[in-house]
Structure formats: structure tokens, C-alpha cells
């Protein structure tokens, strides 16, 4: 196998220990389905053109500068050099500023992961850092200039190596507390929780990314085929939400508690009503029901 090319080479520094390291892209975005934008009138593709909003004339890339709007219609202009000058010179060093307990890592900050491996002779110091962090169950926070941008990275032990993930900045991550502030303080307990936990246990499995297939692409291919053949595809019905009153019943039915089982329990009256409905639904439970049932979509 050809040795992969490093995306970045530099040093990692913790305390007074320095070791040469290299970063390698760990993930890539795969292109899936892509459309082109077409001019309906001519059938030709369209392309983007940049024009002056007042004069309507095309503006070359060289003539485009960044402007920060300070008042309505007034801009502070920043030349590319000025923006570049705001980024400190790269010292090619991931200097560890702090270690944080892995349990405190807020994953929503994660941007892009890189494999971090020792470069040349850095093996020993690298191993010390890796095993030390692994043992202490901590990850490291470091800042450095990566690809001309100042980035904060989170470095953690990963098998024989390290993974350095670039992090989003504080102002880029919405607070989950604020996002969820409007939700009610509702804590589920008792039978509902037990039933839901039971359902979860019956659906326990593992995730295999390799086995996942993007069915959308196939569906679009089908649409294209239908279009060529002059057919149109049927529309899907919207799902119907469970009504709050039906929630317990839906949970019981989901948990696979048959009518007889429920009947033998104390809430017999409740179970009876659910049993009659459940029977009606059963035949269509596996194949998508033609007529919408009360709970299932």
C-alpha cells in the first residue's frame, strides 16, 4: 500500500515534550446524487455569474473584496491580506493547553476528524501521550493554524493512534439548553417508561455504516425512469400522530402485549378497548396499512 500523504506536518507539545506528528484526513464527503440546474426554455445548463448590484456589470474574482456592513449601505472593506494578517503566523505546533475529562466532551462542537500519527521518530513521546490520556480518560485541547485558519482541536487516544478533531467555535454552536428551553419539564415514569424501555430492549442491535444504503438515490432513479416512460408516481400520505390519550395504548401494543396478556392485568377495561382495535389493525401491521390506523403511519 502506498503511504498516504499527510495533510499537515508539525509538532505536538505537552509540557516540555515535543514530538513530530502528521495529520491525515480521516473522513471525506462522498458525492451521491447530483442534479444540474437547467434553463427550462433552452435545455442548457446554467452557470453562476457575479455582477455589480448597481451597474449590472460582471465583476471579476480579482475585483471582489469583502465588506462588513456597518450601517445601512456603508461597508468597511477588508482586503484579503488584512484578513490573512489577522491569522497569527503558524508555529506548526499543536500546543496542548489543557486536558479535559472525556466525559465532559461536548460532541456538538465536533467539526472534522483527522488521524494524528507520529512522524518519523516521534514514536516514543507519541506513545506516552496516547497511553497517558487513555489511562487518565482525558482528551487534549490544542490550538494551531491549520490550512491558514486558526483552529482549536480536540485530541484523543484512538487505538494505536490519536484522532484530532477540529472544533467549531463557541459562537457557532447553539446552546442546547436554549434550544430546548421551551420544552415542558416532563419526566416519564411508571408503566409508560417501563413499556418504552421494553420496546427499546427488543429493538437492540448495532449500527453498521457499511451496510447502510442510501435508498434516495434508487428512488430518484425510479422517478427518472417513470418520467421517461411518462408515468407519475403516487404520493405518500402523511403520518398520523398518536393522540395523548392513546399513548399508553400505543405503547402497550408496541411492546407486543397481546390483548389476553393485558386483560389478565388490572386495567382490564382499558385493555378491552385496545384489544378490539388491535385486532382490526393486525392483518395490515406488517405490510403498510392501506387505510390509516389510529396510531401507525
Amino acid at each position: 500500500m502506498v503511504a498516504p500523504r499527510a495533510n499537515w506536518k508539525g509538532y505536538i507539545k505537552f509540557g516540555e515534550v515535543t514530538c513530530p506528528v502528521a495529520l491525515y484526513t480521516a473522513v471525506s464527503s462522498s458525492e451521491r446524487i447530483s442534479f444540474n440546474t437547467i434553463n427550462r426554455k433552452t435545455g442548457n445548463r446554467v452557470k453562476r455569474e457575479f455582477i455589480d448590484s448597481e451597474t449590472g456589470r460582471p465583476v471579476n474574482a480579482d475585483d471582489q473584496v469583502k465588506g462588513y456592513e456597518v450601517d445601512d449601505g456603508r461597508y468597511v472593506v477588508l482586503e484579503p491580506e488584512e484578513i490573512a494578517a489577522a491569522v497569527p503566523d503558524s508555529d506548526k505546533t499543536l500546543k496542548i493547553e489543557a486536558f479535559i475529562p472525556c466525559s465532559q466532551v461536548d460532541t456538538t462542537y465536533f467539526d472534522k476528524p483527522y488521524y494524528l500519527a507520529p512522524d518519523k521518530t516521534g514514536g516514543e513521546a507519541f506513545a506516552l501521550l496516547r497511553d497517558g490520556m487513555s489511562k487518565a480518560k482525558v482528551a487534549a485541547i490544542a490550538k494551531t493554524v491549520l490550512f491558514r485558519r486558526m483552529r482549536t482541536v480536540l485530541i484523543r487516544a484512538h487505538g494505536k493512534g490519536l484522532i484530532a478533531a477540529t472544533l467549531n467555535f463557541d459562537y457557532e454552536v447553539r446552546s442546547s439548553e436554549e434550544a430546548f428551553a421551551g420544552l415542558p419539564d416532563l419526566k416519564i415514569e411508571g408503566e409508560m417508561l417501563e413499556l418504552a424501555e421494553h420496546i427499546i430492549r427488543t429493538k437492540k442491535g448495532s449500527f453498521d455504516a457499511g451496510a447502510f444504503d442510501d435508498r434516495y438515490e434508487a428512488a430518484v432513479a425510479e422517478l427518472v425512469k417513470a418520467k421517461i416512460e411518462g408515468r407519475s408516481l403516487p404520493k405518500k400520505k402523511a403520518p398520523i400522530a398518536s393522540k395523548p390519550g392513546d399513548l399508553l395504548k400505543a405503547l402497550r401494543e408496541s411492546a407486543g402485549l397481546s390483548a389476553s396478556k393485558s386483560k389478565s392485568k388490572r386495567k382490564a377495561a382499558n385493555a378491552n378497548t385496545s384489544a378490539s382495535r388491535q385486532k382490526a389493525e393486525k392483518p395490515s401491521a406488517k405490510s403498510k396499512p392501506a387505510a390509516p390506523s389510529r396510531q401507525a403511519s
Partner: protein
Amino acid sequence: MAVRPYWKGYLKLSLVTCPVQMMPAISESEKVRFHTLNRETQNRVESRFVDAVTGKEVKEEDEVKGYQRGEDEYVLLEDEELETVALDSTRTIDISTFTPRNSIEWIWLDTPYYLSPNEPVGEEAFCVIRDAMEAQKMVGISRLVISRRERAVMLEPRGKGIVLWTLRYGDEVRGEAAYFTAASEVKADSEMMPLVQRLIKKLTKDWNPKMVADPVQERLVDIIAAKKKAMKRPAKAKPGSSSSQATPNNVINIMDALKKSVAAESRGRK
């Protein structure tokens, strides 16, 4: 929550279904945002679409998506037609599998979203699913169509809500074996280990979002503030300013232009 939901649909666990909404956890709104200007005129630059062959402007209503069939042959797909590509996962997050939270490695996490109930009617069902996952220390695995791609997604309870992560496709994460080779095989020196442990302990702190502050953005804000001040100075006719040279020509009306001129004059053209 003033933010408009990015997606609305349903969360489904077996026969339990509830209306939910989703918004991205990552936002650019607080970033120093620039517009593109034409350096010569200082006007905003706009983008528009032109026909690649005729060069004429194409109006938005004439733009249509094309699925490439041959070299210059496209099957045109109207938005309404694309909407008929309705997999169940377009509208419904049906949780098919649950797996222990720590069984999904961080490297698979792609983009986070916040998921919450969309209508009061669904709040209880939402909370049932959330609390049961929390109690079992499990995350849910499902499928969801986002931006015309079907993604594997992971649902993780968080506070009063649920964080939904899109997960990377199998072929998007590179095998690590090629990267962690001989050099990574080195064993840590056991005698040095206690020292490293001590160093780590000394440097261990609690997580704080200040650790991901952006010094460059702060600097840009300063630069902008300084330039803005320089812009305004002539308007206030303060003598002694020598920044007119560096100030961009942002004349918005004649009055401003006059004031600037007067200020420049009173400075006596240094």
C-alpha cells in the same frame, strides 16, 4: 425559539408517533459576516444565473433540476416531482434499532441537529422515547432524508430534548490501518508513565466553551471597529484625523460627501 425549524416531521417508535421539528445545532449567525463588494464601485456583488450557452440571464422560475442522462441530455425534474420521491424517511424518523451509546464511535458523527416536539400533542410521546433511551443508556438509530440524501441518523437524549446526528456513510471514514503504522507501535516507557500522568493531572481542567473562543474573529472585530471609527471621524469633523487615505470611499449621499470634504479641507491635506 425564534429560529425557524429546518425540518418538520414525525418521530416514531413502533406504534408511537409524534410531530417533531429539527434545527441545526451549528449556526453561522454569530460569525462576522462579510458581503462581497466590487472594489471599484464599492457596490454589493450579486450572483445570478446565466445560460451557459447563450449567456443570457435565467430567471428563477425558468430554473429546473436536471438529472444527467447523456453528455448533453438531461431529464428535467420539477420540485413537485421530486417531492413524490417520498421514502418513509422523508417525513418520519422511525427508530429501528437501539444501541449502547458508547458503541458508536465519535468518528461517525457528522452533523448535529436539535430535535424537539413540534406540537403540544406530541410532547408526552417525545418524552417517553427520550426518557426510555436515557434510562437504558441507549441511542436510537434511524434513517432520514436530508438535502436529498438518505442518511443514517443517531438520536441521543440531551436535557429536555434529543440531539440528532447524521452519521457518516461507510465509505466516508477511511480505514485507520494505513495511518497508524510502525511508528505508532512503539510502547510507552513505563518509567516515564507516572510523570506523564502527573503532567496530565496538572493540566486537566473542566470543559469550558471559552476553550473554543476564536481569537481571529476577535481580531477582525477590532479591525472593523477601528476602520469604522476612521470612517466616522470625518463626518464628525474632528480635526487631526489622517485616516482618510485608508478609508474606503463609502459615500452614501451628498451631505456625507460634503462633510467629508469639509473635514478633509480643514485638515489642510497633510
